[in-house]
């Protein structure tokens, strides 16, 4: 029983790391732009596809094991660096003044378009590139075999991302500007902050993070049409549960979901699917603005 629980926690942590990587970019974007980006799942999928493509190329070179991991990061930066600014400047920048529902729907339109783009570029055959997992090898816990990728790398990257972002947002000038916009957009722009640059930067960083989530997932899972669709709902649940733009909240939520899910798989498999939603409803019942969210005071 205790062994089972211990294993469940290990699995939960690994899963939480993946959930966090999927949701953190969305949380950041939502906090600053107040746009719930439905296309986030598409960035995830494209990040995965590009990583797999690059990985297949890297595997053919002599330096295969060395290249396996850097290729993931490269893919994320490439996808985020191209798609992020392009979409923010060409599409989102035109709708910042419009109603929220239109902003949401614009990203829904992008999602529909990118969904077919993936299909046209990468086809419908599942793509799998597990070079990075092989490069890192296996770990034994008791008599259970884990992959080092899952046990060390994923949680490691998630923690690095969390602390990196916290450092960036709190200690750097750019980061503080972003936080200022998150907390009070009007006051920040009144103080002379160029909101457009903040939006561009945030959206790009968020897109890179989404693509990184996909790139990190690609060695462990098959990329198929629709792989981004499922990610969207999950990351939405994380964002709402965490509270608007709360990076630490996203981590805590990811942990809750990860552990909740793995405990469910062990002890009540039937509930696995609805775990994120149950957690979300429960949290919002008690804290209507999310785990770390504060009510936005309406000035009277």
């Amino acid at each position: 029983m205790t062994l089972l629980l211990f294993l469940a926690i290990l699995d939960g942590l690994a899963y939480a790391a993946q959930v966090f990587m999927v949701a953190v970019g969305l949380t950041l974007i939502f906090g600053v732009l107040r746009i719930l980006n439905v296309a986030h799942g598409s960035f995830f999928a494209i990040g995965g596809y590009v990583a797999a493509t690059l990985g297949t190329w890297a595997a053919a070179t002599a330096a295969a094991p060395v290249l396996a991991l850097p290729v993931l990061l490269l893919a994320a930066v490439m996808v985020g660096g191209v798609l992020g600014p392009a979409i923010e400047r060409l599409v989102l920048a035109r709708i910042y003044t419009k109603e929220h529902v239109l902003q949401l729907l614009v990203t829904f339109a992008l999602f529909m378009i990118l969904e077919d783009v993936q299909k046209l570029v990468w086809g419908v055959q599942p793509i799998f590139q597990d070079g990075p997992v092989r490069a890192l090898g296996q770990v034994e816990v008791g008599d259970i075999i884990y992959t080092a990728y899952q046990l060390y790398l994923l949680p490691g990257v998630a923690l690095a991302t969390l602390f990196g972002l916290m450092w960036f947002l709190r200690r750097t000038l750019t980061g503080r500007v972003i936080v200022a916009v998150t907390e009070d957009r009007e006051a920040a722009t009144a103080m002379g902050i160029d909101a457009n640059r903040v939006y561009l930067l945030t959206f790009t960083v968020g897109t890179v993070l989404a693509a990184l989530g996909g790139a990190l997932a690609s060695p462990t899972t098959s990329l198929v049409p629709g792989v981004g669709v499922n990610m969207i709902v999950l990351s939405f649940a994380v964002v709402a549960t965490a509270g608007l733009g709360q990076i630490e909240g996203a981590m805590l939520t990811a942990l809750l979901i990860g552990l909740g899910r793995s405990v469910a798989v062990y002890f009540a498999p039937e509930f696995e699917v609805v775990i994120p939603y149950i957690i979300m409803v429960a949290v919002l019942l008690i804290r209507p603005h999310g785990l770390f969210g504060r009510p936005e005071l309406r000035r009277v």
Partner: protein
Amino acid sequence: MDRRLTLPTLAAATTVVALAIAAPWLKFVFTVALAKGLAVLGILLLLRAGQVSFGHALYIAVGAYTVAFLRPAIGEVLLLLPLAATAGTIVGFAVGLFVARYRDIFFGMLNLAFSMVFYSLLEKLYAYTKGTDGIRVPRPTIGGVTLDPVAYEWAVLVGTLALALTLGWLVSRFLASPLGQALPAIKTRETRLEFAGISAKRVLLVAYVASAALAGLGGGIIACTTLHVTPLLSYWTHSGELVFIAILGGAGSVLGPFLGAAVYELVRVYAAAAFPDAWQMILGAVLLVIILFAARGLWGMYEDLVLRKDRRA
């Protein structure tokens, strides 16, 4: 009702019937479109209050599965449809009590959560729902009469058209009432509403339950038309589709949802026929263009082109 709507409404209704006579397959497409239009009419109510539900496919599924579950006991459309609307109302009230307290992203996401839980239930409760295989609905009677398939399809189309006209008229009346006018007030100055002694939560709840009832009815009609229901009806992309249609049609008029639904279905059919591998991309591009260049939707375009010209003349 706004007199400016009378002419386009009659023209649209006539067009639907005329096209359905010319091309029989459109009977089905239009019936489904009008049924979705009813659900979108409910979305419109929430949009007036500035709230977006990303989970209203839940109520379509509730209505549709109500018909599917009751069909063995009740074989009459005139009973099944009110029951579908009632089921939508009941579930809408229960969920609404909870979600009406929330706004914006939380409102949207909680609706999404409820619809996804329902979707999972439809798959999980395999013994009752047959999971993704879905449930067959034998063709019911209408007014006690067993109709042949073609007559049945006509009856359902005309009945749905009549329902759309009646409910569209009622909703436009509702929107002009103090209660309906309080919806945009929730969007712009919710606190002021409270300082007028009105519970914004209760106003939103009324709109929410109405929207659930409309979607439940729409779902019932879909079940009576497709005669087969599957859990996919409640999947979140279908909720997104409803919001899509609302924006495509334009939130400015009760005619918007039906216009949007008809155009949506036709664009999808022809996009799928012309580009079977990329119809989704075409729909997405249409949506993108509408939002960027005609944010008030098709109805807004119509207003700009026709009504403004009238006023100038």
